[in-house]
């Protein structure tokens, strides 16, 4: 698991930006300068916010999300955070809550949405904030140890963070980015280097990245440290408290005892020593904040201080002691895994994924359980591990060994992530991790095995502490499991992304330059592609179908069967009806690109639903008239006409019979013409008989008249 590489890239990306900018200036060629001069000077967002892509604000960057200057219509100073990495799903679901924040120590959210970014050549998601920040408190590249006096921290920095956390608690969401790197000198501060008592410090934003993605492992609990940054879950209020405690430690300590350690090593240090000891080390921390930090850095989330405790402490009152909720075990004798001895089962759990074969041997030969019985002796704990072993034994797929070891690892710790050699994630973080891995070209077969084996259901039942909507997650996982059983368009593994990651954009490769967050976005993206003449071969591919079905099933579910048809006519008609339904139900304006595309391309295939070639020409003629209308409903009505189709079919059957009877008549007539024989003689005989009767009669009458006259 190359999580450390990702972490390093996140935290140090600002340094890279600054050095890159300088490098660009030095290495600018005439071509690059000419290209730069052609770049737009500003972009407009929703016609009210002017963004300056040529004015980056690197001190406000949040890992891979980059900051640029912006200005409101009333010339207010703003900045925009651009989420360039489509694999990192921003916390859009928390946008409405963030908008309600009132604290003066955090920049207000002014707007958010998608925008085409010319340099990126694609649409991106952006957040626009009020720019109240002057400079970063902790400079880029600095060690995570500022050595500030506790008085400064207590009077200048802590109140700002507490103000934000109180507001956050009021709106019932988790900030998730409380850290020294996300603290800033606010406008009105006297300095931007060393903190003084007259400075104002504020907290940065938290929406542009998944929870915990940009957090250094210092600020994360041991369990969240162990997971992949994209799979760290959604976070709880207790995580903000922990992050606050870690932030205070960073602000006050003079050196970082965990410097140079990997993400996993930091987690192991926290598990071994306890977070407070691991973060403080031999630093001498004096003052009243020590008690605060101990309370906030408690590794037991049930005993960790919450916001009420913080306020109680701030008001000078004594914070009560809480009952412990989590047991941490230390064995009397060690167990050995690949020449390393372990006394703590949770630390053993962190190393088991790196040694699958040896770990599996420990489990299968009973050595693990034996060690637990003899060296730990806690029967409920041993029973949990036994359950995990049994649960792992019934999984039979390519990843069964990995999952079994991961299950046992989960049982050995408290609220551990599911860990493998390549990745690790908490159950509620699985969805966003899937999106991240897919966009970054990872092999998804393990993720499919996780859903198929339903291991996360076991995880939710046994290895979670609570505080989140695990019932909702269990339902979603069940839906994913059922979806994998069906392989048609709209189902399968693609559907799982959108079930588990509610804010994920559509991941279709055909629409990679568009940030599609709703069926309406898809409609306009396809319209745009039609106008550019770049319509994908399958406009509704597996991702699009699954995405629309999950986001709004009424738009597409009725047509999924036909979209899955092998018959091009049926499939194309279903596509047209989907577009018409989208436009009608969402009351979308004219889409001229789409109507022109249907008239010039799709119509040729659709019209073949009719047998009658004259009718085809007639419909194509009407279609050409609707070419520039942009009205997909009217276009669809030309083809989706059951009465006309039935009539056409009836007439076709009649023509078929007519043709057959002509064939028979032709065969018969050809035979007669080839050998006429006496064919047609009957009529001649009748005429001859008539004539002879007439002649005979005339002679007799004439004779009689003559003789009697």
């Amino acid at each position, binding site marked *: 698991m190359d999580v450390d590489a990702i972490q390093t890239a996140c935290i140090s990306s600002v340094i890279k930006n600054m050095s890159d900018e300088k490098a660009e200036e030095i290495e600018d060629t005439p071509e690059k300068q000419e290209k730069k001069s052609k770049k737009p000077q500003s972009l407009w967002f929703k016609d009210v916010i002017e963004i300056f892509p040529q004015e980056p604000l690197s001190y406000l960057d949040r890992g891979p999300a980059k900051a640029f200057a912006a200005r409101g219509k009333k010339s207010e100073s703003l900045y925009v955070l651009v989420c360039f990495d489509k694999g990192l799903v921003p916390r859009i679901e928390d946008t409405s809550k963030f908008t309600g924040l009132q604290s003066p120590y955090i920049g207000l959210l002014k707007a958010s949405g998608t925008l085409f970014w010319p340099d990126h050549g694609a649409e991106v998601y952006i957040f626009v904030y009020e720019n109240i920040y002057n400079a970063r408190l902790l400079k880029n590249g600095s060690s995570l140890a500022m050595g500030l006096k506790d008085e400064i921290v207590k009077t200048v920095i802590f109140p700002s963070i507490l103000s934000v956390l109180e507001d956050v608690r009021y709106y019932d969401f988790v900030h998730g980015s409380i850290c020294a790197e996300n603290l800033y000198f606010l406008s009105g501060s006297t300095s931007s280097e060393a903190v003084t008592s007259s400075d104002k410090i504020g907290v940065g934003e938290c929406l542009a990245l998944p929870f915990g993605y940009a957090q250094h492992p210092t600020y994360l609990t041991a369990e969240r440290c162990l997971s992949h940054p994209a799979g760290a879950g959604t976070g709880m209020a207790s995580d903000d408290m922990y992050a606050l405690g870690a932030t205070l430690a960073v602000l006050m300590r003079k050196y970082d005892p965990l410097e140079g350690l990997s993400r996993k090593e930091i987690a192991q240090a926290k598990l071994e020593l306890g977070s407070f000891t691991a973060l403080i080390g031999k630093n001498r921390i004096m003052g009243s904040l020590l008690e605060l930090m101990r309370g906030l850095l408690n590794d037991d989330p049930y005993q960790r201080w919450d916001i009420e405790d913080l306020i109680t402490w701030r008001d000078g009152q004594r914070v009560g002691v809480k009952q412990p909720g989590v047991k941490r075990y230390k064995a009397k004798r060690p167990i050995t895994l690949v020449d390393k001895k372990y006394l703590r089962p949770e630390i053993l759990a962190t190393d088991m994924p790196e040694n699958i074969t040896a770990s599996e041997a420990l489990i299968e030969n009973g050595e693990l359980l034996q060690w637990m019985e003899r060296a730990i002796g806690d029967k409920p704990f041993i029973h949990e591990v036994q359950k995990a072993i049994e649960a792992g034994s019934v999984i039979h797929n390519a990843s069964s060994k990995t999952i079994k070891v991961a299950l046992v690892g989960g049982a050995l710790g408290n609220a551990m992530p599911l860990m493998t050699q390549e990745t690790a994630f908490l159950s509620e973080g699985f969805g966003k991790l899937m999106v991240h891995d897919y966009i970054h070209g990872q092999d998804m077969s393990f993720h499919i095995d996780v859903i198929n084996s339903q291991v996360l259901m076991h995880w939710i039942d046994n290895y979670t502490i609570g505080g989140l909507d695990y019932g909702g997650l269990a339902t979603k996982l069940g839906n994913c499991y059922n979806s994998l059983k069906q392989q048609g368009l709209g189902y399968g593994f693609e559907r799982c992304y959108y079930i588990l990651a509610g804010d994920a954009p559509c991941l279709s490769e055909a629409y990679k330059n568009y940030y599609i967050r709703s069926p309406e976005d898809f409609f306009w993206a396809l319209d745009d592609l039609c106008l550019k003449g770049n319509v994908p071969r399958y406009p509704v591919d597996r991702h699009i179908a699954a995405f629309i079905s999950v986001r709004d099933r009424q738009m597409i579910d009725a047509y999924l069967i036909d979209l899955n048809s092998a018959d091009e006519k049926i499939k194309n008609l279903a596509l047209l009806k989907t577009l018409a339904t989208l436009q009608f139900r969402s009351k979308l304006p004219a889409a001229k690109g789409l109507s022109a595309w249907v008239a010039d391309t799709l119509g040729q295939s659709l019209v073949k639903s009719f*047998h009658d070639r004259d009718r085809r020409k007639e419909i194509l003629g009407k279609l050409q008239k609707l070419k520039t209308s942009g009205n997909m409903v009217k276009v669809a009505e030309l083809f989706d006409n059951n009465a006309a189709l039935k009539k056409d079919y009836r007439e076709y059957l009649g023509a078929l019979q007519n043709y057959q009877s002509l064939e028979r008549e032709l065969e018969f*007539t050809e035979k007669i013409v080839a050998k006429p024989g006496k064919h*047609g003689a009957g009529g001649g005989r009748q005429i*001859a*008989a008539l*004539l002879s009767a007439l002649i005979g009669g005339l002679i007799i009458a004439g004779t009689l008249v003559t003789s009697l006259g």
Partner: protein
Amino acid sequence: MKNWRKTILTLTFLGGAVFFLPSTILLLTGMAPSIVASFIDKTKERLKALTVGCVNLGFCFPYWLELVQGGHTPEKAMQILNPESLIVMYLGAGLGYFLEWICVYASVAMTQKKNRGRLKSIEKEKKALTEKWGVEVTGNYPVDEQGFLIKTDETQAVS
């Protein structure tokens, strides 16, 4: 029952022939070609026999009238039956034969012409159907349950 009726008719006819012997002699001789025609004509309608018989009868009638007006005796009948009268009577039969032949010939020729014309119009109609409904209307290519061509190399070439 039918045989009984037939017997009565035959007996009646024979009785009549004997009773009207002179007419029988005259007509039997004069209408011999018609009798032959009735044996030759194998058709159900016996139109050839009718054609020959009508004209033959017409040409025999003046002689029969002469017989009736001359006493209606066998001797008179024999007297009328001379070569000239026989030629006239047989000429009538011949005219009947000729009439029948010419009418049949003309009828067959006209029918043949009409059939050739029909062949051309059938081809036109087929072509019009194919143009309107496609080659699938011919029934010579594989089609699906809705009647549309199933894609094969052959159908790709013609569609």
